[in-house]
């Protein structure tokens, strides 16, 4: 089946994202822009993944469950799973490793945890835009041990992209690297490339996407598809 996917979308839980980004609004917008596969990937936690999973199931939207984790190097890394409970557990593990600095909503924005109707259940107390306790190498290992995809995010960006943080793309068993819509392919070296919107508001959702021809939206099928395409290049 052919999927047009955007695997890097933030919900209202990320303090830098718009409060309009409820799981229901995300899925509705994704449909309207022609996406048929999406992932929610908030900063350093997965507290809105259960609500996201419910909405996707109700709306018949294929999905993965993500976390955009910040490594010790302060590089953003997209962690994608096809099992909700595993993604939630990894999100919790990353969240617990953050420095115990509380969020200041007046300065950084709110971090609301919501249900499938967009009702606020509570707030993530720890400031989510900190670095976790995992360096990139450890993160790849942990994500792979949990059966997920590990993808350095927006490697063409000057802020929080791994190339800008380190000065180079380290040789790790990444499943792909992520570029923004017009990011330079040469940065990806020999890795498969995915493009995602990194949407923090509804207007940018789907502004970058990846086409995948896979039998089902599973980690194994996506990994095989990405590398098969890479080998053809």
């Amino acid at each position, binding site marked *: 089946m052919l999927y047009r996917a955007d695997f890097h979308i933030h919900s209202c839980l990320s303090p830098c994202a718009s409060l309009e980004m409820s799981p229901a609004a995300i899925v509705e917008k994704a449909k309207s822009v022609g996406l048929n596969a999406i992932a929610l990937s908030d900063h350093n936690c997965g507290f809105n993944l259960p609500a996201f999973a419910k909405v996707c199931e109700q709306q018949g939207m294929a999905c993965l469950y993500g976390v955009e984790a910040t490594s*010790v190097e302060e590089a953003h890394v997209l962690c994608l799973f096809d099992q909700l409970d595993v993604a939630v557990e990894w999100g919790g593990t990353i969240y617990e490793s953050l420095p115990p600095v509380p969020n200041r909503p007046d300065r950084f924005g709110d971090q609301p945890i919501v249900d499938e109707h967009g009702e606020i259940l509570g707030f993530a107390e720890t400031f989510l835009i900190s670095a976790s306790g995992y360096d990139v190498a450890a993160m790849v290992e942990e994500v792979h041990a949990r059966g997920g995809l590990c993808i350095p995010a927006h490697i063409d960006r000057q802020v929080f992209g791994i190339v800008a943080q*380190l*000065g180079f793309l380290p040789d790790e068993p990444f499943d792909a690297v992520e570029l923004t819509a017009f990011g330079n392919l040469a940065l990806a070296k020999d890795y498969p490339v995915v493009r995602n919107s990194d949407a923090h508001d509804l207007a940018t959702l789907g502004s970058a996407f990846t086409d995948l021809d896979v039998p089902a939206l599973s980690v194994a099928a996506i990994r095989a598809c990405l590398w098969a395409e890479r080998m053809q290049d």
Partner: protein
Amino acid sequence: MKISDIQSLEGFACLQGEYTDTQVQDGYTSDLLSDVMAHAEEDSVLITIQAHKNTVAVSSLVGVVAIIVCSNRPATDDMLEAAREEGIAVFQTDGNQFQTSSLIAQHLASCPAR
């Protein structure tokens, strides 16, 4: 100052001691490794809290001869292994980057070899 002089400073521990004991010519303080890559001088000591193997990769590229990990951050095993292979000394101190930079700068300034 020589690399081994760092080890004798108060509050410093040596985490990786397999290195050639050369003169330290300069210091560079940064936690953004692309900045280290662009601006650190050869034969420098790097003062940082980034304690992982990529710190060693960048250090070897620019010719950093010793790394001081500040605030007693734990260094990963693969970092120390990489540093051993590259012959780069790794030290750890409880001081932060500012305190450590100030201390190292004083020692570099008072060193006649420089």
